[in-house]
């Protein structure tokens, strides 16, 4: 080989190296970036972005398609990380696309805009436009959203006629939500004039939007509007707001529901032309919007009842989560008391303190102490040991048995417990709580866990933990006989007898009563007393019912749970003590947003007054809530039915017949009710008495 050959060889190598740098390396980087990204490497996303930035033409569009458009959501206004309803919130869409990148709004805008400007006009362009529009809408930029959709419309060739129409429909919908009815109507008219197949997605939605416009223009129709802010005044932009009918709230949110919108740049939302009905506002947020904050709602406190013509304003204020001080971070308590402490909440009149027991897949919660007036409290461990809690079942072999760790509750020294607080104002309205989304270092705070290692397991406890429940019960009974001060054994006896009765689908039997009575004076949770009231009510020992109810009332300082109070009211009606019964039911109704006993309350009012007027009004004001659409009776309709039925010359006779029928209904005696039903002739009265006998 000569020198010139060598030089030629080096030149060839150099050239191929340059080729490698310019052509192969970028491709290799793309492959590497994709791989890193898909494997969730630390820099996966930024590598990918760099690759997208460095590429051009078809390569670039292909990357944006694959990583941004394909997994993005197309103007789906229900697609949020967290949906918060009334008291229950659920996380949605977190892991539906495991490889879905967490693009920021700015990133989406940048790349989708590029795509919309330069990429070939096809189906992906339509999706890119819709996704870009959604990002703009979440920022309250309606005009930009409309422009993006329009741009795609203009770029699409004729062969994409259908997509073109869809884009127009999407624009019309945005106009409707922005209350620009004329513009929406123009677009819909344009669409109606073109050829659209009947009974298609397009034709259905055009019709739906048109009727929505008619509703919204109707000044006599109801409207619901408001503003969503944080408690510091920050308006929340791009929050999904969903006005959901009571018939819809038992299933998860769908795009098909009629009242879906998003807050604008000032946090405002509004629904116009809402048809009469009962509604709840659900809101949709992303993790960064909910992190460290909570929407303070409780079940059944947020219902919106529309009868037509109302202009309601419902503002929503997100509150910061309460920070817990002690016991936290798995602190071990070995003394006889435990001191709970947390941040004071401005305007709070009292706090409720809850404890939770761990389960394999979840937790069991119970109230440890309610109506605490300061932001700390020292509780005797006995209070925790006697906290009422549900119990769960676990599978042993092929059998389902009660989980002994849940039966032991806070008396189990090896369980890791947790706690939380809720703050209420003087009217009993929830202000904020300590439980919620804690997704970064600042919001995480202390972990709300602690251990109670004051007591050691007894022999009976160990039998229980070994799933030998019957032997454990005998051992607890023996231990209690040896030492009448052994409250733990006493509590466990009551609990285990309760489990046995429940397994036979029976209420607590007479064998539990001696134990319950011993426990009654010592148990400040009031659960023992409720059980005793229930027992004596069933056997008709009214003096004992009264005795234990007044003990409960005293122990709870008048804060008897509405359920127990309503049941006591029913027992009074059963005895014919109508005046007292009506009063108890009235108080229970006032404290029960679910209106569970409204039927019994209005029945007692009808009995007392001998007229239907007041009952009709109350039934309309306090509809019984239902999460299952048709589960609850429509008392308003039932009373109206009787009102119509009673008209005529025999009204007096009808009403006295009704009073007799109500007495039958109050008796709760099923045979008696069945006999009456067989003879009764007025259908509306029969329907009312049937509904009354089914209240539970």
């Amino acid at each position, binding site marked *: *080989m*000569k*020198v*010139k050959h*060598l030089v030629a060889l080096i030149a060839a*190598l150099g050239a191929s*190296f340059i080729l*490698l740098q310019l052509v192969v*390396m970028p491709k*290799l*980087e793309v492959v*590497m*970036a994709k791989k*890193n990204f898909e494997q*969730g490497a*630390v*820099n*996966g*996303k*930024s*590598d990918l972005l*760099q690759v997208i930035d460095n590429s051009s033409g078809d390569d670039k569009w292909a990357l944006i398609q694959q990583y941004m458009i394909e997994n993005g959501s197309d103007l789906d206004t229900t697609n949020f990380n967290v949906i918060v309803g009334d008291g229950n919130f659920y*996380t949605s869409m*977190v*892991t539906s696309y*495991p*490889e*879905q*990148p*967490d693009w920021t709004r700015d990133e989406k805008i940048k790349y989708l805009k590029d795509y919309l400007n330069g990429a070939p006009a096809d189906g992906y362009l339509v999706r890119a436009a819709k996704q870009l529009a959604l990002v703009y809408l979440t920022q309250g930029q309606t005009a930009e959203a409309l422009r993006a959709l329009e741009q795609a419309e203009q770029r699409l060739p004729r062969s994409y006629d259908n997509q073109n129409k869809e884009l127009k429909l999407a624009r019309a919908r945005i106009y409707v939500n922005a209350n620009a009815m004329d513009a929406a109507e123009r677009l819909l008219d344009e669409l109606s004039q073109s050829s659209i197949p009947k009974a298609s997605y397009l034709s259905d939605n055009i019709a739906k939007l048109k009727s929505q416009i008619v509703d919204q223009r109707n000044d006599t129709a109801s409207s619901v509007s408001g503003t969503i802010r944080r408690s510091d005044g920050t308006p929340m932009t791009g929050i999904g707001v969903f006005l959901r009918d009571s018939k819809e709230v038992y299933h998860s949110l769908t795009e098909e529901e009629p009242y879906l919108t998003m807050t604008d740049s000032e946090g405002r939302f509004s629904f116009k032309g809402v048809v009469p009905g009962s509604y709840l506002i659900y809101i949709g947020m992303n993790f960064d919007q909910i992190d460290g904050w909570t929407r303070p709602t409780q079940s059944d406190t947020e219902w919106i009842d529309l009868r037509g013509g109302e202009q309601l304003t419902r503002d929503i204020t997100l509150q910061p989560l309460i920070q817990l001080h002690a016991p936290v*971070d*798995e*602190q*071990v308590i070995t003394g006889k008391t435990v001191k709970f402490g947390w941040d004071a909440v401005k305007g709070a009149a009292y706090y409720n303190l809850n404890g*939770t027991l761990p389960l394999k897949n*979840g*937790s069991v*919660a119970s109230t440890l102490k309610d109506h605490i007036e300061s932001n700390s409290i020292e509780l005797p461990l006995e209070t925790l040991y006697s906290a009422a809690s549900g119990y769960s079942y676990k599978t042993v072999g092929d059998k389902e048995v009660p989980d002994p760790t849940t039966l032991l509750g806070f008396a189990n020294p090896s369980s890791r417990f*947790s*706690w*939380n607080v809720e703050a209420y104002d003087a009217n009993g309205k929830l202000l904020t709580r*300590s*439980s*919620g*989304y*804690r*997704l*970064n*270092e600042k919001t*995480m705070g202390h*972990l*709300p*866990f602690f251990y109670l290692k004051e007591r050691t397991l007894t022999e009976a406890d160990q039998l229980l933990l070994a799933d030998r429940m019957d032997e454990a019960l005998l051992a607890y009974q023996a231990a209690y006989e040896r030492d009448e001060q052994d409250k733990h054994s006493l509590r466990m006896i009551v609990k285990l007898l309760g489990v046995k009765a429940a397994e036979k689908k029976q209420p607590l039997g007479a064998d539990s009563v001696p134990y319950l009575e011993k426990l009654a004076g010592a148990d400040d949770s009031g659960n023992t007393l409720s059980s005793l009231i229930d027992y004596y009510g069933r056997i008709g020992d009214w003096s004992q019912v009264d005795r234990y109810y007044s003990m409960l009332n005293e122990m709870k300082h008048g804060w008897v749970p509405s359920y127990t109070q309503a049941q006591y009211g029913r027992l009074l009606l059963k005895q014919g003590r109508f005046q007292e019964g009506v009063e108890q039911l009235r108080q229970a109704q006032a404290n029960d947003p679910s209106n569970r006993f409204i039927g019994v309350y209005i029945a007692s009012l009808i009995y007392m007054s001998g007229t239907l007027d007041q009952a009709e009004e109350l039934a309309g004001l306090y509809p019984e809530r239902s999460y299952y659409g048709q589960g609850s009776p429509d008392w308003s309709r039932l009373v109206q039915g009787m009102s119509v039925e009673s008209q005529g010359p025999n009204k007096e006779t009808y009403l006295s017949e009704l009073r007799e029928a109500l007495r039958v209904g109050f008796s709760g005696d099923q045979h008696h009710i069945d006999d009456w039903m067989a003879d009764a002739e007025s259908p509306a009265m029969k329907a009312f008495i049937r509904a009354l006998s089914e209240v539970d």
Partner: protein
Amino acid sequence: MRMKPGQEQERIRAKLEEELGELHFLKSAEVVARTHPRSLWSKLRALWNYELELPLIPIGTGLVVLLAIVLAAQLQDTADQAEPTSSLPRTERQLVVAGGNTYWKDDYERAVADVEIKNES
């Protein structure tokens, strides 16, 4: 007849000249320049055409290794250029509900491990 040596030489020369008279070495100058380079140009030309004996295998391997290192270093670079993020990308993260709160699973597990270490010490 016998010639004198001088005469003989003369005769052969004459004969050679006569026989080779039609032949000319056209590149004589070039040949000379090649065998005995005088100018820079000719020196370079000599170098250009210098015969080399190279061990192909070691040099080839060396080049391949060098190329690999350069490429690897480059790919490493692109990975390093990206801003370091403190936590895993969100796509890889899972939520966990514990003690009534919702946490990122990795944050939660780290926090629990931290408090356990702290409580032990």
